[in-house]
């Protein structure tokens, strides 16, 4: 899917891209520079990294002082937590749209416009960027398929990709979401909340760049089992 949609400069200023980063010193710098040079605002959240991530964030912030806000967790709290911190911080700046984006360079920058397009044209209040599973390495394909199935079973929402890190919301929609998890369960929780709040919702197919490095983290089989246990527990807790 090639993007023909372009976002005006003014619109870009009110789009806040939330980038949670944990031990991403090698890649987060490039990701931030690319996104900032496209003209978007960035909320970068260092999630208690033990490497040099925070300093990388700060040095990129010096290059693009008007575009980047840096927040830092003192200790590692998980991808979900960092995303929530980013969301809270972004909403304080009165954005029109908020986008969550992975720090490891697995997403394509040009997709930001594609994912925001349904929001700007008013067709949707929430968009998730679905990764085509055929492109995934086999173990990730398997884990993500299972997770998406589980999301359907537990949260009664059918989506193409439940574990994506690429999502976009209008500010008013983002304010309605009550996200509580700390780790990777957050992806499914977003979908649950979109459904619960009856938000107009669209899935946009996005490109995923799989390199050896971007494969290390994310939903592999083990993470999948952990997410499943949490979902089961949540169902028993709340009903």
């Amino acid at each position, binding site marked *: 899917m090639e993007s023909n949609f372009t976002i005006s400069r003014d619109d870009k200023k009110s789009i806040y891209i939330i980038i949670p980063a944990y031990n991403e010193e090698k890649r987060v710098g490039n990701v931030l520079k690319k996104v900032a040079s496209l003209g978007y605002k960035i909320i970068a959240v260092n999630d208690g990294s033990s490497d040099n991530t925070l300093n990388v*964030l700060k040095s990129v912030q010096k290059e693009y002082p008007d575009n980047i806000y840096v*927040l830092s967790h003192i200790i590692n709290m998980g991808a979900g937590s960092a995303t929530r911190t980013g969301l809270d911080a972004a909403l304080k700046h009165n954005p029109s749209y908020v986008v969550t984006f992975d720090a490891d360079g697995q997403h394509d920058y040009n997709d930001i416009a594609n994912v925001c397009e349904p929001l700007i044209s008013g067709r949707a209040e929430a968009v998730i960027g679905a990764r085509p599973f055929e492109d995934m390495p086999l173990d990730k394909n398997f884990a993500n398929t299972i997770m998406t199935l589980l999301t359907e079973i537990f949260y009664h929402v059918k989506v193409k990709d439940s574990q994506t890190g690429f999502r976009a919301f209008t500010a008013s929609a983002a304010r309605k979401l009550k996200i509580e998890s700390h780790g990777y369960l957050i992806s499914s929780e977003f979908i649950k909340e979109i459904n619960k709040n009856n938000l107009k919702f669209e899935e946009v197919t996005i490109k995923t760049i799989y390199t050896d490095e971007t494969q290390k983290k994310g939903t592999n089989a083990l993470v999948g089992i952990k997410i499943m246990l949490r979902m089961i527990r949540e169902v028993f807790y709340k009903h």
Partner: protein
Amino acid sequence: MNGTPLYPLTFIIIAILAIAIIYLKFREKKISLTSFILWIFLWVMIVIIAIDPKFSEIFARIFGISRGLDAIFIMAIISLLYMCFKLFLKIEKLEQNINKLVRELAIKNEINLENEEDKD
């Protein structure tokens, strides 16, 4: 006194040490009154049963279990499970509190360039 003399004696020594530690912790206000009473009760029971194993049969009869030792095991397992559950809930709560703290701190102390330059 029933049983070999060595085994009740070991239990009594361990129990006295444990009670002493619990008492000290309580005096330093490191544990609450409820847990102080519960722990003391637990160790006193252990001492009583160590001195006179027949005592456990009273429990067995209350719960309708034929052997005293079985009753002790069942009670021990149940109380351990209960404690595990309690700990699990407590840890979960702590995790949530820490999470809240870390997130609030991050949002309150947004890193901005001026502050950074002051440090350099």
